[in-house]
């Protein structure tokens, strides 16, 4: 079947088997490999992308379900050479190590910070509890979220 999406602001279409997972459409068909796959049970969140602005795990959706909708992946966060404040904060707070969970964490975070401008640490921990990180112990990811929240509250981006 034909699937049409707007991905990172660009209209794309592809022939997709009905069973094709959204994550494979993104990675294998569109070759946007920043979105990762870390499990097969919807636990790790490495595949998180935004679908019409909402964070979803793209390993648990069919490509067909994204038909006619807008997808944002990690590759779409940087605008006109300016990083999203959360990307910037991840670098400054050492919120990543191996980098494999990072795109998923970022996408979860971008959607979360849209709705929660002054999150508490508990709010942040709850928000990322569907994204597993094996390297950081989450300490600096939480700090990065706090820094990005402060930047966004201060009118940045």
């Amino acid at each position, binding site marked *: 079947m034909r699937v049409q999406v707007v991905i990172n602001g660009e209209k794309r279409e592809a022939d997709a088997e009905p069973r094709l997972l959204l994550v494979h459409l993104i990675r294998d068909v569109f070759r946007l490999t920043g979105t990762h796959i870390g499990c*097969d049970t919807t636990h790790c969140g490495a595949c998180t992308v935004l679908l019409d602005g909402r964070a979803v795990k793209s390993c648990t959706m069919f490509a067909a379900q994204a038909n006619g909708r807008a997808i944002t*992946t990690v*590759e779409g966060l940087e605008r006109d050479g300016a990083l999203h404040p959360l990307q910037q904060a991840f*670098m400054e707070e050492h919120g990543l190590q191996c980098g*494999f969970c990072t795109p998923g964490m970022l996408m979860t975070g971008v959607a979360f910070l849209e709705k929660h401008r002054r999150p508490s*640490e508990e709010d942040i*921990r709850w928000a990322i509890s569907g994204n597993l990180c*094996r390297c*950081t112990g989450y*300490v600096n990811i939480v700090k990065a979220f706090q820094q990005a929240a402060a930047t966004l509250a201060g009118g940045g981006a």
Partner: protein
Amino acid sequence: MTPRTSPEVGGMGHSVKRKEDPRFIRGQGTYVDDIELPGMLYLDIVRSPFAHAKIVKIDTARALATPGVLAVITGKDLEKYNLHWMPTLMSDTQMVLPVDRVMYQAQEVAAVLATSRYAAADGVEAVEVDYDPLPVVVDPHKALEKGAPVLRTDKKDRKDNRIWHWEWGDKAATDRLFSEADVTVQEKLYIPRIHVASIETCGCVAQFDKVTGKLTVWMTTQAPHAIRTVFALVAGHVGLEEHKIRIISPDIGGGFGGKVPVYPGYVIAVAASVLTGKPVKWIEDRMENLQADSFARDYHITAQVAAKKDGTLTALRFDTVADHGYTDAAANPSKFPAGLFHVCTGSYDFKSAHVAVDGVYTNKPPGGIAYRCSFRVTEAVYAIERMADIMAHQLGMDPAEFRLKNFIKPEQFPYKSALGWEYDSGDYGRALRLAMERVGYAELRREQAEKRKRGELMGIGISSFTEIVGAGPSKHFDILGLKMFDSCEIRVHPTGKAIARFGTKSQGQGHETTYAQILAEELGIPAKDIQVEEGDTDTAPYGLGTYASRSTPVAGAAAAMASRKIRDKARLIAAHLLEAAPEDLVWEPGKFSVKGAPGKAKTIQEIAFAAYTNHPQGMEAGLEAVSYYDPPNLTYPFGSYICVVDIDKGTGEVKVRRFVAVDDCGNIINPMIVAGQIHGGLTMGLAPALFEEISYDEQGNVHGGSFMDYLVPTAMETPKWECDATVTPSPHHPLGAKGVGESATVGAPAAIANAVVDALWHLGVRHIDIPITPAKVWRVLREKGVTE
């Protein structure tokens, strides 16, 4: 430590932002599954539902009729090339694909080669295998009993399931001390099977060029050079010689020890590429990763310690049954079948000790690899720290006071342990006292006493661990005969920028940043001007790779030594430029100046330019060096952790209220990265203490084989770690550094377990095996008559 270099240079002690991050936060990293080559085929694997069975028949007809499926590879196909078995790192043997028998659930049975991922998966579904189940042995104690089915019938001379029996230490002296002891304690400690579960699973892309005969493999490996040599040894007879093999380890999504071994999937993908001449991708899924890749631990320890009644520890005896699954595929230095488990006298001044370990075959996946630790050090630390606590409680002594009394004293270093290790440096009392101060130890004990009166359950647990990392000196350390040195090659370009290549491979540790900082420290070239590369065997110097916290102790030292060779040559060039005698020049990071005339100086950049444009006659041009560093000793990072838990009497849930970690990894290269390593390590220490376990039922069915029931901690379960540090440099490491990636994983589980038992000791509880789940605690509470 105040940095010697400016922030612009960014040498040791600066929290330089990571060079790796700009690509990762943009999704521009290149992990193995991101690699796509023209005409690439996909491999997927048929796995056994049985833990032990004869393969009666493999029917591939329906699979071969599946659209997109090109071939089904079985053990019989590989047998034609003598590639159906391969050696393990411990010189045992492991099946690539079975010819007639499977030995554990989820073992590879056949492989399907297809034009897409989905077609390969369809093919796997369509392969029909008839099995004839055989008796299953999952309990290693039963495996050792007389009359147990002998599992490795492929080994003609094998009469039982004992792989090896290994002893270390003075048995007679230890027995004597036990018989003379005022107090002895004994406990059975089971350290369960766990899995590193890096968020990236394992996989590879193998590309064989039929014209040149060259094989290139992009793979998730922590040790690319060793892998190249292993491939050449295994497949040299079919034409894959070492100069025709290139292993590339691209960005790696976490390793923790799980990406050291060679898994059958890699070998099958290589074979498939060689046979078809097409690139072949194999990426395992999470369930395959958890169920079939090498596990860690699975140690059954009967631990005993002896002491005088004043609390002085005298002797230690650990007898262990080590469940290795169906083959010994541990990743240990070959001289030490139980790894460095005999560092188990820990931080204490024992007079004598004796350790015995039996390696046992069972119907489980192979392994005995690390879980972010150096060769069984976590097993050793967990056992000694649990036993120290049990002894303290038995004697009625405060566990902190007990430890302070028994620590090896600072003036005893270098210290020869009862089991023969030479500890390089340490100040254990300082670390513990700092942790006690940070956590408010005395106040917590008062609070605990108050709460106990009210029937509330609160515990305080200490772990004062000593690690042993940086393997290792070539006299004792090799893997498959390859000595455990590591390497650095530096090329300083004419414009004063540099590239440095290493035999190690980062999996998130930030080598591109920290290694550049070492060069910046030693040469004064700004870290930002130094490109670090690893992981490509065609370009990097030979090295044994990254695991066991060996990168900084070994390759980091090589970076310092190679830098110093460059500095030696730079001195001669500077002398030529300044028309001075080399011995009259003074080095400070970044320049040589003439003694007494600081204005007369040449920067390292000027010297580099001269090395290519105006080098002295009789000297070779260029400014390059390579070092293969053979460490004179291991390094011994240490620390003291204090954990405070509250236990819910109704549910049995253990809540970690506070966790203070004081680490000492010697001199620090990048404080930000060190802190990050400790945060992550602590979380991987929390995980097996409270959540993670892979277990098997009597039929060998795996429990914990997916993220549904293998509980990797999320941000919600992870406490807020409180970290601090002391600095006791290593006297033998050129930078005084010790390595830090694994300390916290090693030290944390015992602190948590000790806290739980500390909360329950007054009820008569002496031990609960990890993971300390709510169900286990709830059962213990009910047994002890505690009600909500």
